[in-house]
């Protein structure tokens, strides 16, 4: 689905969401209140300015105090790779955006990610992965690194990696693998209106971070949950 189709499906009565320089911001009527939308569109890379702009919108929402849900719609490239962005502290800006979303969540704004295209690396962590629950649409294509690049770095033949990817979701790009890892909670049905599907997700927001449990159930992260639990239990026991 395109962003326009998504917004049309979410807000049949119309909305005030705009896109500028690949950055998405605005809101629309939702379940008797409103749904704020931020995000990245058009496979745009996320740099220092973009991250601060989006974080600014999120902090405005928190200041408004209405506890309205925030949808983070993502079809992005990775972080913007440039000397200037790093010089200006891209790590702080991306972390700031993630912290803004996590703060909003703590202050009662349900945060929902919606992955409808590509996303990768730092941009993915700072946006979609910083929400309480992450949904995706079929065709979404999250990745940390594409397989040819993985082949280059690991010095393994591409064919072998493709073969391994079938049985080992832990390293291969793609929505199915991110789903198996537990990073993506659910895949929405594009044939049905998105509004109610988002509403249903918000209705059952997980209390705690359950991504490792999902990863264990779905087989994409076989040991993470048990390891985290063992560490936490042992250290609590002193």
């Amino acid at each position: 689905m395109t962003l326009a189709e998504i917004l049309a499906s979410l807000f049949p009565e119309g909305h005030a969401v705009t896109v500028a320089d690949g950055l998405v911001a605005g809101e629309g009527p939702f379940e008797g209140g409103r749904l704020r939308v931020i995000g990245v569109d058009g496979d745009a890379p996320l740099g220092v300015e973009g991250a601060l702009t989006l974080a600014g919108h999120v902090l405005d929402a928190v200041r408004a105090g209405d506890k309205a849900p925030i949808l983070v719609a993502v079809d992005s490239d990775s972080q913007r790779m440039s000397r200037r962005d790093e010089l200006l502290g891209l790590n702080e800006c991306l972390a700031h955006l993630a912290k803004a979303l996590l703060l909003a969540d703590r202050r009662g704004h349900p945060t929902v990610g919606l992955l409808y295209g590509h996303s990768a690396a730092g941009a993915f962590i700072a946006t979609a992965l910083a929400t309480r629950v992450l949904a995706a649409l079929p065709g979404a294509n999250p990745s940390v690194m594409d397989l040819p690049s993985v082949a280059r770095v690991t010095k393994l033949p591409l064919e072998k990696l493709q073969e391994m990817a079938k049985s080992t979701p832990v390293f291969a790009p793609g929505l199915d693998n991110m789903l198996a890892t537990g990073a993506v909670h659910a895949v929405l049905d594009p044939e049905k209106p998105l509004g109610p599907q988002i509403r249903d997700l918000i209705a059952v927001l997980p209390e705690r971070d359950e991504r490792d449990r999902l990863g264990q159930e779905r087989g994409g992260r076989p040991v993470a949950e048990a390891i985290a639990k063992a560490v936490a239990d042992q250290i609590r026991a002193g």
Partner: protein
Amino acid sequence: MAGPDRDRLSWYEASARQRLDALLDPGSFTEVLGPAERRMSPHLPLFDLPRAFDDGIVVGSGSLDGKTMFVAAQEGRFMGGAFGEVHGAKLVGLLRAALDVKPAAVLLLLDTGGVRLQEANAGETAIAEAMRAIVAARAAGVPVVGLIGGRAGCFGGGGLIAGTCSRLAVSEGGRISVSGPEVIETNKGAEEFDSKDRALVWRTMGGKHRRLIGGADAFCADTVSAFREAALRLIADAPAFDLDTLTAEQARLRARIDRFGQCRDATDIWAKLGVNDPDAVPAMDTGAFDETVAQAREAVHDAR
């Protein structure tokens, strides 16, 4: 092997275990899920790669000046300190426990190239989980302090974790960045970033630049004792995690881009910060650099 003489032990050279041993009060460190439990990566054998008994991260608790600390130390020499499934989960478990136990602080000895490619999805997700857990701990009043001065630096998702901490201490050798020099060069060409120009690399993402622009809160000589003193100072002075802090951070970062967005090189930024002789900064020793930092108002803030 030299004993843990923290005044002489180089942070840059020490292993994760040596750093922890020397950083904490003597004999106070208790490791959880230590090497003898052999919780190794289930994925590396598929790639015919050697594993480490601790998957490259040491986690546990100890004391610093008598105060209880939770600590995690990444081993930058094993797979570049990168986040794999087990590695990431150990950090996440530690941070989650901090929320209940409320130690005096959590110390993260970051030394990482980012996500371990062979376990990329697990690593990436673990970083997101860790960031959420850091925020939860901070909101509950537990300072989370990052210490960065290892050879792997703090790259990729590690850079985002650093940006989530309450406070950061960095040494000259430490680098903090999202995209590494080689990654930028590979994607955008050597004209954009010549990764072999090491002076440029350190000017752009090294400890001194980060400290001068307020990307880190303390600058340490390359000894464990310098990091220990910095950690004690930073714990006592950690900002809260709330709307005020993030509002201030928004303003701080916005002002930085407005003021320095046109600068091509770190030396241009340092000149605008009021540093008299920007070209002299890389060669300064810790004392001279501290005096220089004292003149840069951007370096001191509670906006993180």
